[in-house]
């Protein structure tokens, strides 16, 4: 039995050598800064090419693939557009695990606005500042929309820093819309948050089997966190002091506590039993089945509500529209609404010819007439001229809601630690909404844990717990 033992020893030694060599080699190309894209689009290939996107699975992803294959191929017949989709909860992981491998099967990652910081810091996407200067009419956009979907470091709410670098361009604008039952609460939507809660309460009492409210409460993705952040904004709260990187004492100040109290003690009792894990689809299902008086959802996900095949509210679109109304969010102490939507970026790990094609696609997509066509195809554009165009405003009853909300938008933190910050907020708000934690404790825990994450930058060992 001497021989097998020798083989074992040799294998172990080889393995250790391999491990040591790999370990000593370290990381090969980790960049602290994103690589720069050229100002001019390089020569495009004439060979067949598939330009791949990555997004999460929802109606706009299908709309984008259909639209781009129908329109972009008129200009570039050798190109096929493929929009790869993953479940919403896996969206961040699906992109960043590939970024970690320094090899992506997508060329254009569609990042949430808050993902930009992480991707830029890790050098995962191209810096397109020079490309934008040369090829994009930045004056055609609301400055904040351009900043929210592309700028890093993050812009102040409502502003754009023209000296900051750009890493993406808007693909799909979005915000929350209030969906209300005109046949149950009347044609005029509630104007304030208090009025909205009172109307929901009255509607629930008068209509057994119909809950007053439906909104996102799940602890996956950013569901419950966006709900709290929205109420926080409306009640005059702040998520953080970005300059001082301070969360403790800011999110859980008096306004923040009031927002949490309103959410848990006034809004939650008006929701359906077991709705504590609802997200986009569940809220839409409740509205379509006539089970909610007032609901809140992302505009880009609301198209299905008007489909008679998915709704019990009417046999035609007009019949459904006779019962459903769409309005901007009610105001209270402020008129802030959540910024949704995403920008498109270029993977730093794509081949040069695909990066060139991606830049060409972005230039093509941001043209005025294409943005209007995108609006007519079901997309939500970001160019001001497209937002006020009849193509957009007539494409859906909720599109005017978006156009009216642009100046009211507020985003979350766009920092490399975003994924952990959102998880902390999601789980704690979800715990408060489902009775697993008192609301005040939940908010204080959010403040304490998020502050610890921001403060732990540079700490050695045990990060991420």
């Amino acid at each position, binding site marked *: 039995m001497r021989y097998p033992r020798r083989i074992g020893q040799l294998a172990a030694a080889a393995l250790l050598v391999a491990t040591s060599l790999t370990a000593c080699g370290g990381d090969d190309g980790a960049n602290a800064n994103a690589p720069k894209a050229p100002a001019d689009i390089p020569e495009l290939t004439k060979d067949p090419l598939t330009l791949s996107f990555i997004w999460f699975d929802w109606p706009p992803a299908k709309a984008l693939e259909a639209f781009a294959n129908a329109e972009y191929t008129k200009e570039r017949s050798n190109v096929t557009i493929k929009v790869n989709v993953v479940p919403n909860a896996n969206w961040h992981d699906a992109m960043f695990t590939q970024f970690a491998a320094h090899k992506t099967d997508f060329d254009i990652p569609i990042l949430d606005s808050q993902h930009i910081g992480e991707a830029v810091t890790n050098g995962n996407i191209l810096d397109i500042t020079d490309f934008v200067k040369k090829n994009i009419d930045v004056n055609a956009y609301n400055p904040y929309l351009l900043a929210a979907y592309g700028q890093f470091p993050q812009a102040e709410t409502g502003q754009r820093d023209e000296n900051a670098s750009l890493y993406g361009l808007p693909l799909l604008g979005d915000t929350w819309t209030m969906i209300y039952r005109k046949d149950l609460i009347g044609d005029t939507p509630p104007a304030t948050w208090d009025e909205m809660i009172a109307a929901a309460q009255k509607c629930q009492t008068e209509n057994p089997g119909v809950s007053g409210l439906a909104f996102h409460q799940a602890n996956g993705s950013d569901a419950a966190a966006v709900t709290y952040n929205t109420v926080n904004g409306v009640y005059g709260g702040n998520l953080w002091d970005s300059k001082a990187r301070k969360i403790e004492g800011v999110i859980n100040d008096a306004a923040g506590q009031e927002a949490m109290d309103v959410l848990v003690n006034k809004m939650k009792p008006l929701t359906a039993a077991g709705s504590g894990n609802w997200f986009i689809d569940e809220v839409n299902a409740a509205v379509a089945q006539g089970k909610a008086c007032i609901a809140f959802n992302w505009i880009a996900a609301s198209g299905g509500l008007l489909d008679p095949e998915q709704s019990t509210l009417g046999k035609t679109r007009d019949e459904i529209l006779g019962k459903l109304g769409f309005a901007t969010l009610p105001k209270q102490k402020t008129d802030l609404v959540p910024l949704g939507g995403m920008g498109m970026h270029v993977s730093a790990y794509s081949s040069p010819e695909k990066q060139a094609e991606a830049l060409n696609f972005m230039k093509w997509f941001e043209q005025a007439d294409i943005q209007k066509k995108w609006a007519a195809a079901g997309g939500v554009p970001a160019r001001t001229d497209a937002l006020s165009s009849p193509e957009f405003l007539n494409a859906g009853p909720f599109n005017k809601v978006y156009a009216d909300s642009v100046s009211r938008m507020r985003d979350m933190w766009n920092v490399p630690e975003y*994924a952990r910050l959102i998880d902390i907020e999601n*789980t704690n708000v979800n715990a408060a909404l489902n009775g697993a934690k008192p609301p005040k404790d939940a908010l204080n825990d959010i403040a304490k844990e998020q502050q610890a994450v921001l403060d732990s930058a540079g700490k050695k060992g045990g990060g*991420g717990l």
Partner: protein
Amino acid sequence: MSDPVSLTDHPVQEASATPPAPGRSRHLSDRWLTVAFISPALLLLLAMSVFPLLWALYLSFTDYSATRGGPATFVWFENFTAILTSAQVHMRAFTTLLYVVGAVTLQTVLGFSIAYLISRRVRGRGVLTTLFLVPMMLSPVVVGLFWRFMLDAQFGVINSMLGSIGLGQVEWLTKQNTALISLIVVDTWQWTPFIMLIALAGLTAVPKYLYEAASIDRASEWFRFRTITLPLVWPLLLIAVLFRAIEAFRLFDLVYILTSGGPGVSTETLSFHVYKVAFLGFNTGTASAYGILMVLIVIVLAQLYMRYLNKLKED
């Protein structure tokens, strides 16, 4: 021409003197042939299991992050200390413990009971066994998804059935006290057949003459179960319990699909927490240390358990 007498007299010596079969290289000895056959599997094992384990072990002593990149700086035991002293980890460990004890106990009792009942049947035993095995053959993600629909408080069939007999709605997946129970029930539905299968194998192997002898002595049913059936099936059952406990300890998929760890973090297991540390913050060093600690816990507990099993065997 060979001598027939010598063949009969020294058959062994003659056989060993036979030259190698035509076509086999003179240099390819049995020893090298063995190495050649074993090498592919060994290399695969080294590449897919041993190397990642050693690599994770190395990373566990560093502050490496897969996305942030840069050199991995040694932090020695700081990751381990942080994990072992973290209140967040203690909470997940307690949840995991509750889950493992609840699920494995329920599965063992049910699995053995079903196996015992099936073993007493003569007709339809094969069909029944096959039917009971169906849940085990399904993907945990599929199981999680259809149980999620069935347990939905508003539209689920379970609450609909409860409503039809006059019971109120239960929030199976969104309340702290029911979410973990729901996870245990779903896991039990899927994995009770595993215990049942092993218990059935043990019950079938019990010699019939023991029962016949007991019948002659007019032993009661309970006496026969207690003194013949249980002692003979017990060691096999304990091995099934070991397998199930290890599986349950690293539960991830059902939590991910059914509750996402909620409400709050009340159903987050250790594996789910490792996933978050590894892929939300991409703290690869900490996640590696976390994983290594989990492996160590399983190894130590399994060793203790195996010692108990051996002692049982010796007794």
